[in-house]
């Protein structure tokens, strides 16, 4: 459903962040993107919805080529890609409800959104999503009054209300404690399954990735080093991705029911 062909990104400084990345994500697949800092994980995700302009290569979402779309058409395609951010990236001075509804901005006109008069079905959907993540009672709180885990749930609602086909998830757990991290990962994976969404989850925590996803991509210096199921991540593989280190303690003893839950 998502296809990257020879995707290259070279920054103005001359750093080559992505070197001819090839990737194919079928419908409904949740995959994790791992790799050391600076491997180009964030760049890859941002190239897909063109928050970062790729230097060359092609990106297909379904049968639409995203690279080379005009601004207007790009906006229309961005609606099909929900994005979840590392530091939540909620608009802190807006209420929870406004943050969730901002996911519908691509569908409503300027004045309607400016006056906060969203269609009733959008409002209903927003309440349903907030209820799904357990935050319906918080709708009128300001986003900066929420805890980290709660904020990330709002971020998830904002991405899902777009009614996307694909979720782009950038380090969803980087600023959360271990327990909340697991809850958030579980929530994302459950929601993807419920709605049949594909997702690319960019994540630091290898053990957490193994716990929830069906497929892992390892990135090093902007090139794909590993592509396979989570239990294929042996110490040798991790050494090629991250470099020499004792990996035995990092790899989670694969928890049987967690895997079942994820699949």
């Amino acid at each position, binding site marked *: 459903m998502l296809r990257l062909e020879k995707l290259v990104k070279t920054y103005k400084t001359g750093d080559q962040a992505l070197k001819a990345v090839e990737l194919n994500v079928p419908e409904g697949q949740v995959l994790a993107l791992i790799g050391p800092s600076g491997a180009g994980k964030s760049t890859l995700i941002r190239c897909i*919805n063109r*928050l970062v302009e790729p230097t060359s290569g092609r990106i297909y979402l379904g049968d639409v080529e995203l690279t080379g779309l005009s601004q207007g058409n790009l*906006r*229309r*395609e*961005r*609606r099909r*890609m*929900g*994005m979840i*951010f*590392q*530091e939540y*990236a*909620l*608009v*802190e*001075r*807006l209420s929870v409800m*406004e943050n969730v509804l*901002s*996911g*519908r*901005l*691509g569908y409503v006109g*300027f004045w309607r*959104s*400016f006056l906060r008069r969203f269609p009733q079905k959008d409002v209903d959907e927003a309440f349903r999503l907030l209820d799904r993540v357990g935050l319906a009672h918080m709708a009128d709180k300001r986003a900066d009054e929420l805890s980290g885990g709660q904020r990330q749930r709002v*971020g998830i609602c*904002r991405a899902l209300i*777009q009614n996307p086909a694909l979720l*782009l998830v950038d380090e969803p757990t980087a600023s959360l404690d271990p327990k909340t991290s697991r809850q958030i990962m579980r929530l994302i994976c459950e929601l993807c399954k419920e709605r049949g969404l594909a997702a690319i989850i960019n994540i630091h925590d290898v053990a957490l990735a193994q716990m929830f996803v069906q497929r892992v991509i390892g990135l090093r210096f902007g090139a794909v080093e590993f592509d396979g199921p989570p239990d294929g991540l042996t110490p040798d593989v991790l050494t090629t991705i991250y470099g020499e280190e004792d990996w035995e303690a990092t790899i989670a003893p694969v928890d049987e029911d967690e895997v079942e839950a994820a699949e």
Partner: protein
Amino acid sequence: MPVEEIKGQKIWQRRSGRESLAHWVMWLIGVAVFAYCWQQISASTTWFFVWDAPRIADDIWTRATPPRWEYITQLGKPIWDTLNIATLGTIFSLILAVPVAFLAAHNTTPSRFFIRPIALLIIVSTRSINSLIWALLLIAIIGPGVFAGVIAIAIRSIGFCAKLLYEAIEEIDQTQVEAITATGASRWQVMAYGIVPQILPAFAGIAVFRWDINIRESTVLGLVGAGGIGLQLSSSLNVLAWPQVSLILLVILAAVVISEWVSAKVRGAII
């Protein structure tokens, strides 16, 4: 090289020889410049008047006290005008400053090499000219009165407000803007949802702060004929009615204190 060896002993000095020489030369130049300036001022001063100053000051003081309290009945309209000049001037200037600020901030400007310099030029030129000069100019163009005062205050405040506002725009959290962009929002929606909520508190603070300054400035605009209480001050000075002058000064002082108090209260409520 602050540590030197002299006769086999290490001597620490705060500055090396060359540094301390440069330091002394700078001080010398500074003192010379100041001495020259003072000499120039002194040359164009009639020192006889200066020696006579204590007597004159005492004379003015005895004439000015007590203030002519009953004159306050005639000050109602001028005070109202002063308030209007400040408030309407602030409102107009904010309406003009917002677009200028968006054009000047390097993360929102549509064109970095063409439009941004123009916006910055508007900011620096309106800011560097005092409102009294703007008032003089506007009186020459559209005639004396409150209206000239309003426009003078409005023009003068554009640069001040736009400068503070564009600094606030440049400091916003870019990831929030990115998040809104990623939803497929249009340029204007990104502005309304990603940028405006972030700068709204700064905007409110700037508005109240500038209103406070404008109250001060509008009290004296009348000196050049642009309406407000300064008009009464100027006419009282012209006929040397010192008791009225002292009353007007007290009223201005009260206005300044009250506006400062109001602006502190409002800013406290916003933030």
